[in-house]
Each structure stands twice: as C-alpha cells, then as structure tokens.
C-alpha cells in the first residue's frame, strides 16, 4: 500500500513541478465557469417550471459537480500515454500497471482539490449553496462512482489500444458521451422529451449523477446504489479481461 501512496504522492507533486502559479489558469477558468453556472441555474429555476428538484438542491448539485469533477467522471492518463509512449514505462516498474494508473490518477486529483475545491467549499455559503449531504450513503455511492469510473476508463483505454491511431478521436467521443449521459452537466431526471426514462439505467448514469443525486436528496438511495453495484460487478471483470487481452497489442511510439 505504501508503494501506491508514494506513487500517488509523486503524481501530486509532479503537477506542481513547474510551480503552483502555472496551475492558476485552470483554477481561474474553473472559478469563472462555476459562478455563472450557479447564476444560470438560479435564472432557470426561477422560471416557475415544475421539476423534481428545488433551487437549493439544484445549486448544490451544480456546485458539487464542479468541485468533484475529476472524480465524478474518472479519466486516467492511460489513453493519452498510449500515444505519447509513456504507458510502456509503467511495465518497467515493480507494480501492477492498473494499480499504478489508479495511484497516479488519484494523486493527480490532489492539487486541484487543494487549490480549487477546498477554497470553493469554504466560499460556498456566499453562493447560497449548502454542502451538507442529505444522506450518509453519499460516501458509499461516491466510492462506487469512482470505482466504476476507473472500470469505464480502462475499457476506453482498451478501445484505444484496439483502434491504435484513434486515441484523440476516442477521447473526444468519450468526453461527449460520458459528460452528457453521466448527468454531471444536467441531472438525468431533468432531461426533457422522455430522455430521463430512456437513459437512467445505462452505466454512465451510475457515474457522477448518482452520488450527486443522493447528496442533494433527489434520488431513491437503495435503487441508485444497487444499480451502481450492479454496473461495477459487470464492468470491472470486463475491464480486467479486456485489459489483459489488450496488453500485447499495445503499440506506442512516443514523440
């Protein structure tokens, strides 16, 4: 376990190698997006349309989604490193490759949690946002979401290995599909035209949208967590099997 913690620590420090000041543009962009997003939802919710969430719930949902963005839809460096030639280096280290990827990803979350999420949690009362979970099961759901996120990411990495020269393309499609169907931008139960019913049982709905809905008290906790467990049980064995089969097909030039 210590090896993984050290790997995560290395990853966290690596982000600040150039100096913390170089992380500021990302932090500024996140803050500048979050504040208008809060007001967008305030404007939208004040329209008087009948929905299943209150304004307070919606604001909490939107803010928490921004604060935990990296964890709600997990993205490991696997796909990018495939084309950059870095992935092969992991095979030269005395730890399982997937374990390293998980540790490196978790470590990479730390700088933004400290520089963006933590300060915004402290400032959240200024945005009229209440960051107290409505259910203690949020934590369990959040962990299941992260776990499922890794499985989904590894499956996309296997797809990148299979399709070789299409890493960028897969990243684009994956970002588009996952951000929409995970409910991190719009809560799934607010989707119009019957889309909510159509998409709420697919695996991406068990990512970000599930813990967020539980946090604000807008979900059936038992059913949501049961679905998350089910998708974890289905996708993890698939991901492990696919990765084992894909490894020998890795072609990585770097550059």
């Amino acid at each position, binding site marked *: 376990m210590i090896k993984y913690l050290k790997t995560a620590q290395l990853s966290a420090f690596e982000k600040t190698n*150039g*100096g913390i000041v*170089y992380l500021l*543009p*990302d932090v500024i*962009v996140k803050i*500048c*997006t979050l*504040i*208008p*997003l809060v*007001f*967008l939802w305030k*404007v*939208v*919710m*004040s*329209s008087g*349309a009948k*929905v299943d969430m209150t304004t307070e719930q919606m604001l909490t949902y939107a803010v928490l989604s921004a604060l935990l963005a990296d964890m709600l839809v997990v993205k490991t460096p696997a796909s990018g490193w495939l084309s950059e030639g870095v992935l092969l280096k992991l095979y030269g280290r005395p730890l399982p490759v997937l374990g390293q990827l998980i540790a490196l990803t978790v470590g990479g979350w730390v700088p933004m949690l400290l520089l963006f999420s933590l300060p915004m949690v402290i400032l959240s009362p200024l945005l009229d946002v209440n960051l107290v979970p409505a259910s203690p099961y949020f934590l369990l759901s959040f962990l299941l979401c992260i776990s499922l996120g890794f499985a989904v990411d590894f499956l996309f990495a296997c797809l990148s290995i299979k399709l070789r*020269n*299409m890493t960028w*393309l897969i990243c*684009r*499609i994956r*970002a*588009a*599909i996952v*951000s*929409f169907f995970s409910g991190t*931008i*719009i809560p799934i139960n*607010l*989707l*119009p*035209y019957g*889309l909510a019913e159509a998409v709420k049982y697919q695996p991406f709905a068990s990512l970000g949208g599930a813990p967020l809905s539980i946090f604000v008290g807008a979900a059936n906790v038992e059913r949501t967590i049961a679905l998350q467990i089910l998708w974890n049980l289905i996708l993890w064995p698939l991901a492990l099997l696919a990765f084992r089969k894909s490894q020998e097909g890795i072609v990585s030039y*770097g*550059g």
Partner: protein
Amino acid sequence: MADKITFTRVIKLLGISAKMDLAWFLRDTKYALAIIGADIVSNLSVVSAVFLISARFGGIGGMSVDEVLFMMAYSTLITGIFVMFGSHNNIHISRIIGRGQLEHLFIQPLPINVQLATCSFSPFTGGSNFFVGVVLMIIAERRLGLQVSFGWVLSLAVYLFITMVVIVARSYLVSSLAFYAPVAMEEISYTAVEGTWLLSTFPLSGMPPFVQIPLLTVLPEGLMAWFPSLCLLGRPPLGLSVYYPALYVIILLPITSYIFKRGLSYYVRKGSNRYVPYGFRR
C-alpha cells in the same frame, strides 16, 4: 526572399491546404469520417446541454427556446469555422510556441502571419460542424420567423468574423506566456479557448450585471454567442450598441499585437530548449 502576398496568393495558399485536406480524406476515408463524426458529437453534446435545459424550463432568462436554439446555432457555426481554419494548432498557438515549432515557420518563404492564416484550411474534414451550424441556423430562423435579407446575412457574417477575431486574439494574447515558459504554458491557449467553451454557450440573459459585465470585458465569453445572437435578433443586451463587439476587437487587437511581438522578440533572442540533440521533445 518572401513571396509577394496578394489576395490571389492567399486564395491559392488556402487552395493548397484544401487540396491536402482532400487528399487525406480520400487516402484514409474511414478514419476521416470517424473524425468528422467525433467532431459533430462533441460539439452537439456541448450545445445540446444548454438547449435541453431551455427546452425543459421553457426558455432561459427571457430568451425563448427558439432564441436559445438560434444562439446554439451561432455557437456551432463558430465551432465549425474554428475547426475549419484552426485545426493545425495555428489558433492554439501556445502549442506551436511551447513545443519549439515556431522555427519551422521561419524557413518558409512566406510571412508567418500568412502561413498561420492559411496552413490549416480543411473544408472537407473540418467543415462538418459548420454545415451542422448552417442547418441549425436555418431551423432556428424559420421557427423564429426572422426576416432574412442580404443585409442580415451580411451582419451574421460580420459578427462571425468578429467573434473569430476575439477568439484568435485572446488565444494569441495568453499564448505570449509560452515564449517565456514553454513547457508550463504549452496548453494555455487550450485552457483559454476550449476550457471556457461551455461557459460561452450560457445565455447570460437574466443574470445580474456583476456576472454579465465581466463576461463581456475581462473574460469575453458573452461575445462568443450570446451578445452577437441577441444583436442579430434585434435586441442588443444591457443597452449596449450593436457595435460593441467591433469596439472590443479594436481595443483588444493592438494590445495582443504589442504583447505577442514582445514575446516573439524574446523567443528570437533566447530560442527554445524543447528538443534534445537526438530529436525527442523534453
């Protein structure tokens, strides 16, 4: 000696880029079609988020669902133009600077600005979002019952051009940092342009002025789609003139030009250390 640059020469250079784009499309059609599909899906996922919110709530901040659709069509047109003219990092210039690739342009017998303006023209593989934007614009225009005249289409073209100038100028402004910190600032342009793209699709109508005004000045996301769309619909917001975007460009361009040239001068004196002697990038 550099070629003489005339309008005809610029068109010919665009033609060369288009020809190379077509050659790639024909040589690797399956991959090119996959890229085109990915571009469309990626853009639609961004604009559909705001549109679906507006559809669910019957509009946003005084803008009707069809007006929001019109704004999303404008945003898609901008994305289309961006991809069609900027897919070779010539708009994300911090990547070229940060990777030490600016020297590659120095050896060509053409001014750098002409190379950057023409090198990326890809109507065949990059034109899909522009086409989708045109279709969305026609649908929105029909649903809104707009009186489309030649003057209105000209206004649309001018606003699209101004929006693109704002995007390019802002990208070049922040990318000037890459002259001084090539590794750390290699992706600054991406952060400034793509990182804020979702924000640029927000209809700012109904938001308080302390949110709207910064988004029309310091961080001009409101000029990416919201402000021009409302101008084209005949009701410029905040009591500002329809000429405000043009005024913004007139102020932004000399500032960008001055700062970028200073950075370039520094780069020419100091060079780049991104490549090791055997060719790999640090």
